Structures are given as structure tokens and as C-alpha cells.
């Protein structure tokens, strides 16, 4: 689906979203009339200090306005922008700032939903789609924590060997399915049905607690994370 088709299907009652330099920011009318804040990255743009600050500011503005309408994050991005300037200026703080804004929104009763409709990778992924309460994917989305050729370089294994290994475990290879099995993506939407309905359904049943590790365990992609985290939590709670 193109971004226009997605926006049309998500917000049939209209939206006011600015699209500049690969960044999306604006608002949209939800089914039922609530006005959601929308941010995002399109066209596989990298996310650098300037973009992260702009999106972060948009989220904070929405929070300032109050209410309990959702914040929607649409993502088709590159990785974080890799440059000396970005690192010099402290890209980690800018990306974290955006992520903190999204997480705080959720904690303040503004459900956050990430919609991954294209590519994303590494730090850009963490700061946007993975900072939401719920992340869903559209068919064809290609999240990529680390691409196989880069992995091949570092692990000194061939891409063929890595591809073979990826058949037995979803834990390292790129792709929507692998990420879903490790618990990162809640569900993949059906583009042939109205996205607005699917969004409403997700908002209706989303948990405010972070349950991605439990989901990864259920789906077999992350066998240990949920249990380890829970054991540590219990021990630490008792010790504290």
C-alpha cells in the first residue's frame, strides 16, 4: 500500500498531515470523532537530530493539548542518520527524546500505535515504532535490525549460512515475521479491509503494560526473556 492509500484507509474522515523532508506530522480524525496526533517517517528517510527533534516536539505539543486521543506513528524509514554531525550533536539524546515523548504519552493515557508499512532499522526503529504501546505491520513491511551482509561481515559467516541458520530461529534475521515471532509486532493487518476498523480493534484491546516479552515467549521467538525479567523483578521487589 502507498502512504496515501494507508492514510485514506486509516482516516476516512480526513486528516491534516504535513509531509516534509521525509517526516510526517499532523493530526487525523478517528472513527468516532477523536482527533489523533500523527507522526512518522516516509520514503525510507534516515532519522537524524533535526527530524527527531521535530517529531518529538509534535508529540509534546499533542500532550500539552491534553485529551486521550491516540498518537499514531507511521514508519517507513532508513536507520538513524549515520553522520559525524549527528554524533557530534548527540544523536542518542535526540532519538531518546522522541522515544521518551511517545512512552510518556502512553503513560498519560494517550495510547500509542506504531504502524510499520515499509522499512526501518536500528536506532530509528527503536525511537519510533518500538517506542509505542502497540506495533502493527502491513504486509511487505521490512524491519531490519541488522542486514545479513553486515552480519556476515562481522560474524565471518556467509550470507547463505546465515540464511540457513535463520530457518531454525527468528532471533536474528530481518523481516516482519521474525520480529512478530520475537514479540515485537503484535499483528499484521489485512490491507483489503479498512485499516480504521483494525486500528479501532487494536485500541480496544491493547494492554497498558509492556507485554512484548510474553508475546515472544508465546510465539517461541524469545524463549527466556519474559521469565528472566519476571524472576529479576520479583527478587528485586522483595529486596527493595
Amino acid at each position: 500500500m502507498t502512504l496515501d492509500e494507508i492514510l485514506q484507509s486509516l482516516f476516512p474522515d480526513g486528516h491534516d498531515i504535513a509531509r516534509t523532508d521525509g517526516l510526517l506530522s499532523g493530526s487525523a480524525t478517528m472513527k468516532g470523532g477523536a482527533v489523533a496526533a500523527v507522526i512518522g517517517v516516509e520514503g525510507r528517510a534516515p532519522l537524524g537530530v533535526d527530524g527527531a527533534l521535530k517529531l518529538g516536539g509534535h508529540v509534546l505539543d499533542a500532550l500539552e493539548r491534553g485529551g486521550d486521543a491516540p498518537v499514531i506513528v507511521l514508519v517507513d524509514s532508513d536507520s538513524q542518520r549515520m553522520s559525524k554531525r549527528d554524533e557530534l550533536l548527540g544523536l542518542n539524546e535526540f532519538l531518546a527524546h522522541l522515544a521518551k515523548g511517545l512512552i510518556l504519552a502512553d503513560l498519560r493515557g494517550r495510547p500509542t500505535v506504531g504502524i510499520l508499512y515499509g522499512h526501518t532499522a536500528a536506532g530509528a526503529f527503536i525511537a519510533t515504532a518500538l517506542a509505542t504501546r502497540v506495533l502493527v505491520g502491513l504486509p511487505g513491511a521490512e524491519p531490519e535490525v541488522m542486514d545479513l551482509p553486515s552480519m556476515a561481515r562481522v560474524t565471518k559467516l556467509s550470507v547463505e549460512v546465515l540464511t540457513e541458520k535463520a530457518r531454525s530461529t527468528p532471533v536474528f534475521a530481518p523481516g516482519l515475521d521474525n520480529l512478530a515471532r520475537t514479540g515485537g509486532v503484535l499483528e499484521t493487518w489485512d490491507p483489503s479491509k479498512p485499516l480504521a476498523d483494525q486500528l479501532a480493534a487494536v485500541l480496544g484491546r491493547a494492554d497498558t503494560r509492556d507485554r512484548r516479552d510474553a508475546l515472544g515467549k508465546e510465539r517461541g521467538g524469545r524463549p527466556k526473556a519474559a521469565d528472566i525479567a519476571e524472576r529479576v523483578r520479583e527478587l528485586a521487589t522483595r529486596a527493595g
Partner: protein
Amino acid sequence: MSDLTPGGTSESGRGGVSWYEASARQRVRLLLDAGSFTEFVGPEQRETSPHLQVFDLPEQFDDGMVVGAGTLGGGAVLVAAQEGRFMGGAFGEVHGAKLTGLLRAARDLTSTPVLILFDTGGVRLQEANAGELAIAEIMRAVVEARHAGVTVLGLVGGRSGCFGGGGLIAGCCSALAVSEQGRIGVSGPEVIETNRGVEEFDSKDRPLVWRTTGGKHRRLIGGADAFADDTVDAFRACALDLLRTTGPLTLDTLRNEQARLRERLDRFGACADARDVWAKRGVDDAGAVPGLPADDFIALAGRVAEPSHDAR
């Protein structure tokens, strides 16, 4: 297990022990009040990574992450430390889950501070998806804890620095203490050079690497709140100090951060080099900064660096 001993560095007193050289276990034990540390899910439980076998790689009994509770200056704290020498301190499934669990406990307890002793290159490649999600979960847990009123401090001064997702987690902390060796960033110099070419970033130009990502630059640009000499004692003093001065995460905090980062972009966005940033910051002899001893640098940073409290 309160007395895990690392191989490598002297046990005689914490003052002279180099943070950079110490192991994760040694940092924890010497940072906290003597004998106060209790580990959770320690190495004897052998909760190793379930994924390294696939790559025929050796496991470590604690998966490179030490978590537990103790006291600092008499007050209860939760603490987590990454072992930067095991797989570059990278986040894997178990490694990350321990920290997630610790932060969730802090959130539930609402008042016990958390110290995170970073030493990481980012996501562990061999379990990239698990590592990426672990980082996302940790960031969420940090913000939840801080929102509940918990102070989360990051200490950075290890040989792997604090890169990739580690840099983003650091950016979520209430405050950071950093030493000269403590590099903080997202894309490491080698990664930038590989992707963008040596003209963009020469990763072999070590002075360039250090002044762009190192602790002194982070302190001067406002990316860290305190600068520590490379000793366990210095980090302890910084931690005690920062615990007294930090508050909860609120919308105002992020508003202030928005303004702080906006100002940074406006003032320094056109700087080509860290030395230009420092000069604009008001440092008279920017070229001398890398060579300054810790005390002199701390005095300098006290004069010119912005107070960043409640803007992080």
C-alpha cells in the same frame, strides 16, 4: 553472591581501581557500600543465552549482565552492570531481560534508585531481534520507573563505551556520569566510516573519535551531567551527588529537554568539529581540552557547561 572476584585488577581499595579496566562485577562491588551487594539470577544459575550455540560461540554464565541490590551511602539502590569485554557488552535476550526486570521492580517500588553501569556496543548481532526488543523494553521500563518517581542514573566509562541502543537507553536516564574514556553515541565511528566513507568519519583518527564521542565532549555539550576521573571512587562520588539532585520525569521535563536540544541545534548545528562547539561554549583554548587532567576539566565544565537538571 556477594563476593564475586574478577580476575585482572587489584582488589586493594577502590580509590586506585580504574573503572575502565575493572570488570562489571568489580565495578559493582567497589561502587556500592562494602559487602552490600546481592546478585539476582547470578552466574551459578547458568541462565546463558539460548542463541549463541547456533553460532558456535562461547556463552558466559551471566550473559554479560550483572543485576542486583545493595546500598550506596547507606541508601538502598538497584544496580545493573554490563561486562564490556563479553561480546562487546552487547544486548542479547537474557542480558537485556535482566535489566528490564530490574527496572520494572524499581517502577513498582517507586522510590529505590537504579544505577546502570553501561559498557556496550549496542545490539548483539547474533540475536539482533531479541536485543533490539530488549532495548525497547528497557527504554519503556526506564521511562515508567522515572514516571513513577524513580531516579535512574547511568554511569559510562567502560572500554566498549555506550553505543547503539545503549546510547538511547542512556538518553532516557535521569542523569549520566561519564569519564573521558566513556564514549557515548548511536552509530559507532567504524559503522559511519563503513556506510558513509572515510571522508565522513575517519575511525582511525583517534583524537577525532574521542573528541566527537568521548566523555569530555558529552559533558561540555550537555550530554552528561557529571564528569568522573577514571576511578571507581570518582564514579561513586558522582553517583552520590547525582542521586541528590534529580527528580521525576514529567511533561515539563521533556518540554525543558525540547528547549535544551533546540538550543543546542541552533547554537552548534553548523559546527564542523567538537573544538568549534567548545569554543562557542566559551572554552578559551579548545585545543587543550583533550589533554586537561580530570580536575582541571571538571572545573572548566563547571564554568561553561549548561546545568541540565530536569531537562533530560
